């Protein structure tokens, strides 16, 4: 259902969309039943001349079941939703499948910078490919990302991947994704981070293996060796920079 509104391009985005459908069906039934009952009662018991209201206290057993049975059913639906929600959560946030490649994502007022490990597959080596506002990944590969912020709280949000993780200064978070469809997708900052928050975007480009290799070769060649001495791994934002 969400897929009609926004592209779905990662391995777990279908799980998130499935959870959305499940909840919509369950709460939709309740919502329609409750509103229908509500409007029917208003219509049925409109004041009429000479007709008094009934004296109903709510202690009558045959009436109380109209509250108690739905109530028990709400609890059942809650349990179903809790189980489904936690399953999806565990997939996205609690399990970390082995990575084919690890990238670094750095948020800073008001730009995203990325580091790809380059041909040697290791971060913080001279062949790292550093980019600003554009992250290239290869379709079908499992990626880990190391997320950090240099100043305030940002949030790494890739809507097409159904992925969101806040970046807090002073910490490094590890998460994962596995792109399933080629194309380019928006990366946004989802946590207000100052006057430039509204323009803090980047592109996530999912390449075919060939295109990715070509991109990597083109960029590895032009990345200067001294870039390796940069110290992204120890974020040290000075208050007042």
């Amino acid at each position, binding site marked *: 259902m*969400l897929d009609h*509104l*926004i*592209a779905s391009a990662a391995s777990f985005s279908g*799980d*998130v969309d499935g*959870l*959305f459908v499940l909840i919509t069906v369950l709460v*939709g039934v309740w*919502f329609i039943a*409750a*509103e229908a009952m*509500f*409007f029917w*009662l*208003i219509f049925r*018991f409109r*004041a009429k001349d000479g007709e*008094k*209201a009934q*004296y*109903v206290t*709510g202690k009558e057993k045959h*009436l*109380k079941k*109209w*509250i108690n049975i*739905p109530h028990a059913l*709400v609890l059942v639906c*809650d349990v179903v*939703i*809790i189980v489904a929600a*936690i399953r*999806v*959560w*565990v997939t996205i*946030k*609690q399990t970390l499948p082995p990575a084919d490649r690890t990238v670094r994502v750095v948020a800073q*007022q008001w730009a995203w910078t990325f580091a790809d490990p380059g041909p040697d597959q290791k971060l913080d080596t001279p062949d790292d490919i550093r980019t600003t506002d554009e992250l290239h990944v290869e379709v079908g590969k499992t990626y880990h990302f190391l997320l950090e912020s240099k*100043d*305030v*709280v940002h949030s790494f949000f890739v*809507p*097409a991947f*159904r992925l969101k993780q*806040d970046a*807090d*200064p*002073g910490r490094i978070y590890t998460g994962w994704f596995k792109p399933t469809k080629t194309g380019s997708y928006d990366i*946004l900052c*989802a*946590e*207000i*981070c*100052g*006057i430039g*928050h*509204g323009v803090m*975007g980047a592109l996530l480009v999912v390449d075919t293996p060939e295109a990715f290799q070509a991109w990597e070769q083109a960029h590895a060649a032009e990345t200067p060796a001294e870039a390796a001495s940069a110290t992204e791994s120890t974020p040290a934002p000075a*208050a007042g920079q």
Partner: protein
Amino acid sequence: MAQHSHEAAHVAGASHDAHHHQNWFQKYCWSTDHKMIGMQYMFTGMAMALLGAFMAYVFRMQLAFPGHAVPGFGLVSPGQYNMLITNHGSIMIFWVAMPVLIAGFGNFLIPLMIGADDMVFPRLNRLSYQLFLLSALVLIASLFVQNGGFGGAWTAYPPLSADKHYNLTPWGSSLWLIAVVLEFVAFLLGGINFIVTSMNSRAPGMKAFDVPIVVWTIVIASILFLASVGPLVAGAIMLLFDQLLGTSFFNPTRGGDPVLWQHLFWFFGHPEVYVVMLPAMGIVAEVMTVFARKKLFAYKTVIYTIIATGVLSFFVWAHHQFVAGIDPRMANVFTVTTLLISIPVAEMCFVYIATLYGGSIRLTTPMLWALAFIAEFLIGGVTGIYLGSSGLDVFFHDTYFVVAHFHYTFFPIAIIAVMSGVTFWFPKMFGRQLNEFWGKVHFWGTIIPFNGIFIPLFILGAAGEHRRIFDYSNFEHMSKPWMIDMRIAATVSLVVMLAFQIPFLINFVWSMFKGPKVGKNPWNANTLEWTADSPPPHGNWAVMPEVHRGPYEYSVPGRERDFWPQDEKV
């Protein structure tokens, strides 16, 4: 002493310190009368609502027509946009919902409904309003200082809020925080008064389960507020120290932790939702029983569900932080507690719907608002399930789905229930009746466009439109033509809704002075406030009432009249 004269007055059945003539200043600026203070809270809240609504108008216009000057404001800069959304949120929750629902209705209704002549601490009550007024003035002042008002969102997450180098509003952010602290101290004083008064000053014969639901809800909400506000006030003062003294409670570069603030904020912030929701539910219960001429279905069950909701509300705060970098296992616990809160809240909704069964329903203006509360609040309730589910919150967090969800809870609470209460108790406040025709025009002119604003925002949120963005044309996935159309539809609906507030304001002011006069009990209601004069004098009753039965004895078989006031002897 105030208490002594109060007690003496209660015993003697006479009004306290109201015997001497009061000049204008004593009556309107230095009054200790709970009704005057309650109405002052309401009027201040309504004035702040106009300011908050104007802010909403400006930023919605910017979102629908980015880059165009907004009539009445001009071009909106990104900094101003952040200031507008921050202060819209702060004002509507802290300076509108809280003062009107808790302080306004609480002050006006509690002594009248329990048969007391005033609050137990009338001068503390006076101080509470004065501090609140001061906090509102400080907040307004914060909009006009160097670099303008605070723009770090109403949640004020540090380090953005803690450091002027990041938020660029050195004065705005400090004044905003000072206003928040002052305001909470004000409500703390008011809340203590509500709890003590309702426990000690009930009319003779009034047992706990003879107390009207709205008093129960306000008192339980006050207890929730007392229990939750401490961490936030402490956090706010720590944040103020970070801003002004260079401490680093929340600054990681010197050993602080930004996530600590989030816990302190939401430990208060989530119970806060119920602090304002419970009185709204109470108001709706009062209005529904009167206009359905029915006993409230399962009165005691409602009270137990209110208490259960209040207790559970303390165990759900971290659902605001699923993606905030807390230990991911915590999300599982908070998913369970969050979804469990649907149990008492659903029970309350079922009870309200069941109250209509067998009724003799009169669709007066207050009743229309009360019914609309239930119809709209259900939408807010069921959409909360989406967001409490951790696996889906990964996507929906901080999107417009959240914005639409909480407006579907807060708008029914802070506007629909309030309108129900204001139109219901207006005759008691001013001794005159509001115009029904214009009341209904206002009702439909508010309810229909309200849905026109927020239904599109649900869809936009599900399409990945996230919050607090100044101009969506910077992003490809949020620039589709249908999304632009929906933004315009939401904005047009907002303008229509705001235009329909004009008949209400005119009706309100006109009826205050020129509306048809009413007697003590124009709605034929049971609760004690309707046994006092309209409007009640300082001290409320010449002879204090006695209570003989519960508040909802409508349509009792074997009686000629379909109501049976609480103080009427058999």
